[in-house]
C-alpha cells in the first residue's frame, strides 16, 4: 500500500476555505503537543490566549491597533503577489508613507486647515510616499528586469535608516526640538489635534474604538476585489500573473502593468504608514526598537499567503493574527511561554502552505492488488 498525490480535475470551492481552517486547527494541535511536553496545560493556555486577544476589557482595542497595519501590509502584498510581483517592500513603503503622511499632517494641521482636509491630505501623501518608494523596484523590474524581491527587500533597510536619521540623527522637520523631553530623548514632533485621525467608539467591553484606518483598510479591500475581479485592469493583471507570454500575446503593455501594480501595492502600504501616524503614534516613530521592530510588512506577507491573496480574507486573517500578536504581548512573562505565539504563527504558515497541495491534489491510497482503485471520471487528456 502506498500514497499517491493526484492532480484534482476540479477544485471544489469549499476546499479553499476548509484547508486554511484545518491548517490553523492543526497548528494549534501541534503547538498543544509542544505545550504538553513543556508541562503546560494547552487548553487553559489557549483560553488565556483567546481572552487576552478578544474578550478581556480593552483587549479588542489593542488587537485593532495591531490588526490595522497588518491589514494594510497584507493587502499591499496580496495586490502585488497576485500578479506574481513579489513586493517584499511593504515594510519600507509603510515607513515612507508614515513620513510623508506626517509631513502633510504637521504642515497643514499647524497652519490651521480643517480636520477633514488635513486628514485627506495625509491619506493622499501617505499613498504617494509609498507609491514612490515602491516604484523604485518597479522601474528596475520593468526596464532592467532586476529581481524585485531583492530590491524591494533591501530598500526596507534604507527606509528604516532614513526613519531613524530623521528623528535621531538630524534636526529634521519631523523631530521635536522644543521642550524638556526632547532634550533628553529624541522623539518625533506631535501632530496638531486637527491632524489626529478620529475613531468610532462602540460602548461594549468598556468602549472599543474602531480607528479610521481600519475603515480605510476595509475600503481598500473592497476596491482591490472589484479592481481584480470586475475591471479591465484586473483582467490584464490576472493574465499577466498567470503567463507572461500570454499577456504579451493578448496585447497587455507589460511594463506599464508592472509599474501600475507596484504603485498600487506601494500606495496601500503607504496608506498604512499614514494610518500608523494619524491613528496611533501621532508622531513619526524613528526608534530602531519601535515601529521597525514590529515587522508589520513581513507579517503582512504571511497574512496575504494565508488569505490566498483574497482581499476580504486578508482583512479577516489580519484581525486574527492581530489578536494573536496582541495576546502574545499582553501575556508575556508570568508563567506564559514566551515563544508560544511565534511558534503557533510559524506552524500555521507551514501547514497552510503545505495544505495548498491538498487544494490542488488529492491523496489516493493505492493498494498493490489489482482492480481496487477507481479513477475519477473526467475529460480524457
Amino acid at each position, binding site marked *: 500500500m502506498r500514497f499517491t498525490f493526484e492532480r484534482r*480535475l476540479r477544485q471544489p470551492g469549499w476546499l479553499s476555505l476548509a484547508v486554511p481552517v484545518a491548517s490553523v486547527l492543526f497548528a494549534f494541535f501541534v503547538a498543544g503537543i509542544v505545550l504538553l511536553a513543556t508541562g503546560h496545560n494547552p487548553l487553559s493556555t489557549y483560553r488565556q490566549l483567546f481572552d487576552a486577544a478578544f474578550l478581556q476589557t480593552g483587549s479588542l482595542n489593542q488587537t485593532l491597533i495591531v490588526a490595522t497595519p497588518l491589514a494594510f501590509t497584507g493587502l499591499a502584498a496580496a495586490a502585488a503577489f497576485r500578479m506574481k510581483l513579489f513586493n517584499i517592500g511593504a515594510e519600507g513603503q509603510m515607513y515612507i508613507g508614515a513620513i510623508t503622511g506626517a509631513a502633510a499632517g504637521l504642515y497643514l494641521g499647524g497652519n490651521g486647515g480643517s480636520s477633514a482636509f488635513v486628514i485627506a491630505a495625509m491619506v493622499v501623501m501617505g499613498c504617494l510616499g509609498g507609491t514612490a518608494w515602491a516604484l523604485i523596484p518597479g522601474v528596475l523590474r520593468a526596464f532592467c528586469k532586476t529581481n524585485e524581491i531583492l530590491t524591494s527587500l533591501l530598500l526596507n533597510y534604507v527606509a528604516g535608516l532614513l526613519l531613524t536619521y530623521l528623528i535621531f540623527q538630524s534636526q529634521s522637520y519631523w523631530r521635536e526640538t522644543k521642550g524638556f523631553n526632547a532634550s533628553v530623548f529624541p522623539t518625533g514632533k506631535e501632530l496638531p489635534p486637527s491632524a489626529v485621525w478620529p475613531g468610532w467608539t462602540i460602548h461594549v467591553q468598556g468602549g472599543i474604538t474602531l480607528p479610521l484606518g481600519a475603515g480605510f483598510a476595509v475600503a481598500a479591500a473592497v476596491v482591490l476585489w472589484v479592481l481584480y475581479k*470586475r475591471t*479591465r485592469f484586473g*483582467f490584464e493583471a490576472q*493574465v499577466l500573473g498567470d*503567463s507572461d*507570454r500570454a499577456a504579451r500575446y493578448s*496585447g497587455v503593455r507589460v511594463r506599464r502593468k508592472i509599474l501600475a501594480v507596484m504603485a498600487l501595492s506601494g500606495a496601500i502600504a503607504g496608506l498604512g504608514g499614514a494610518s500608523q501616524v494619524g491613528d496611533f503614534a501621532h508622531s513619526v516613530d524613528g526608534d530602531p526598537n519601535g515601529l521597525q521592530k514590529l515587522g508589520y510588512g513581513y507579517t503582512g506577507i504571511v497574512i496575504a499567503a494565508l488569505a490566498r491573496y483574497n482581499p476580504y480574507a486578508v482583512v479577516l486573517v489580519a484581525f486574527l493574527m492581530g489578536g494573536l500578536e496582541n495576546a502574545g504581548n499582553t501575556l508575556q512573562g508570568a508563567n506564559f511561554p514566551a515563544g508560544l505565539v511565534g511558534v503557533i504563527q510559524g506552524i500555521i504558515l507551514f501547514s497552510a502552505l503545505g495544505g495548498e497541495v491538498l487544494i490542488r491534489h488529492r491523496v489516493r491510497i493505492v493498494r498493490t492488488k489489482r482492480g481496487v482503485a477507481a479513477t475519477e471520471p473526467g475529460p*480524457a487528456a
Partner: protein
Amino acid sequence: MASAVPAVSMVGITKRFPGVIANDQVDFEAASGEVHALLGENGAGKTTLSHILTGLYRADEGTISLHGKPVAFTSPREAIDNGVGMVHQQFRLVSRFTVAENLMLGDRRGAGRHFRIDPGAVDTQVRDLGERYSLGVDPRARIWQLSVGEQQRVEILKALYQEARVLILDEPTAVLTPREADLLFATLRQIAGEGRTVIFISHKLHEVMAVSDRVTVLRAGKALATVQTTDATAQSLATLMVGRDIKPVTREGQARPDSPPVLEVEDLWAEGDRGITAVKGVSLTVRAGEIAAVAGVSGNGQRELAEAITGLRPYTKGSIRVKGKPVRAGDARSAFEAGVGYVPEDRLGTGVAPSLSIAMNLALKSFRNNCRGPFLRLGPMRTNAEHEISTFEIKASGPDQQTDYLSGGNLQKVVIAREFSASPSVLVAGSPTRGLDVSAVEQVHSFLLRAAENGTAVLLISEDLDEILALHDRIFVMYEGGLSEMPPGASVDEIGLRMAGQAAGAPPA
C-alpha cells in the same frame, strides 16, 4: 532474428492518471536484434509505456522483464544500469556543457566515476562511437552550439556510451529533415544489427514501414496487435491505429495572383531570444484566400518570423503591412487590431493563460471592446463563451472550467475559436496540429480551409510536410533565417533538400 527469450517483455501493464487510463493491460515484447516500432496516435499511450520501461513512471499493475529477468525500476538510474536508454522528445542535455561532459554526467562505470575527470579519455570514446555508428559530433562542442539534429546524435551517443542494450527513441524524426531521418534509420538498423533492441516510437506510418521489423499498434491505451512489418501495409496499419478509415483533408493548391495582397512582408530582420539574428531578410506576400505554407526544421527562424508578424517580437529592419497599412514593430495589440490573428506554436503558455477560465481565454483579446467604462461585462463574456464552446465543439464542462484541464485538441479549439471569431484578415498558424490526435487534426485543418475560403490570408508554419502538402497554395521553406519559395509542384525530396540548406548528397555536418 528473434531469440527465444525476448529482450523486453512487459505483461499486463496498466497505468492510470486522474481521469484517464494511459495504459490498459498492455502486453509488449521486443526481441534482441530488432527494430520494433510502437505505433499509435498522440495520446494512445506510447510515451507512457516507454516511461514505465525507463523507470520514470511506475506501473500500477503488470510486470516487466529484461532478457528473462524480472525487473521493477523505481528510477531512470536503475533502468540505465540495466541497459535501458531512452532518447526523449525533449532532449535531456545540459546546454552549457560540452558533448563529452554530457556523456560523463551520470556515468558510473567509466570516466565519470573518478573524482578527477579526464575529458581526453571520453573524447576518444565519443569519436570512436561516432565513427562506428556514423554519428559524428565534436566532443568538445557545447550543446547550445549544436543543431537539433546534432543534439539528437548526442542523445543516442549517450545511450550507447552507457552501453544500452535496449534503446528507445520517442518520435525522433520530428526534428529532422527527411534526409537526416534516412541517416538515422541506417544508424538504428546498424545498432539493431549488433543484437541490441531498438524501440522506435512514432505516429508516422511511412517511417514505421521504412525502419522497423515488427510493429505494435496502440490505441486508446490498449495494445491492439503486434505484426511483422513485411506482412503489413501502411493502409492496414492506419486502420488499426485510428480505428476507422481516415480521409485526409486535401485541396487543390493554386496560386491566386489576382487576389488583393493582404499581408506584405518586406526584407524583415529579427533577433531570436539569444540576441542572434534569427530572421534574415524575409520577404513574402500572402493574398486573400491563399494558404502560404512554410516548411522547415524547427529552429530555423519560423517562430521568430511568426512572432515578428504578430507583434510579439520587435523586428530590427524591414516592414510589415496588413492591407497596405504598416504594423508597428513589437506591438501585439496594434497587430491584432489591424486584423492579424495568431495561433501560436506554444499553445499552452502563449495561446492561453492556462489557469484562467475558458471564458476568460476566449475573451483574451476582445475584453477591451466589451466593457462599460473600466468594468468588464461578465454576462456577455459568458454567453459568448457558451456560444463558441458549442460552435467549435469544445469538449468542456462549461465556460468556467480552468483551461489547462482541457485536452490538447480542445485547448487548440479554444485558441482557434478566439482567433477566428475576430474574423482576421491575416491568420498566422504555427504548428497548429502538433500533438493532436487524428480527428482533432482533421477539425483544425477544416477550420484553416474555411478561413481561407472566407478570404483570410493564411500563413501556415509547420514541420509536418504531409500537412503542408495537403493544405498549401504555395510552399516556402525556411532555412537558417532565410525564406525561399518552392516552384509549384515541387516534390518531397526537393523540399527536403531545401530544408537541409540544399546540401544535396553531403551528410549534414
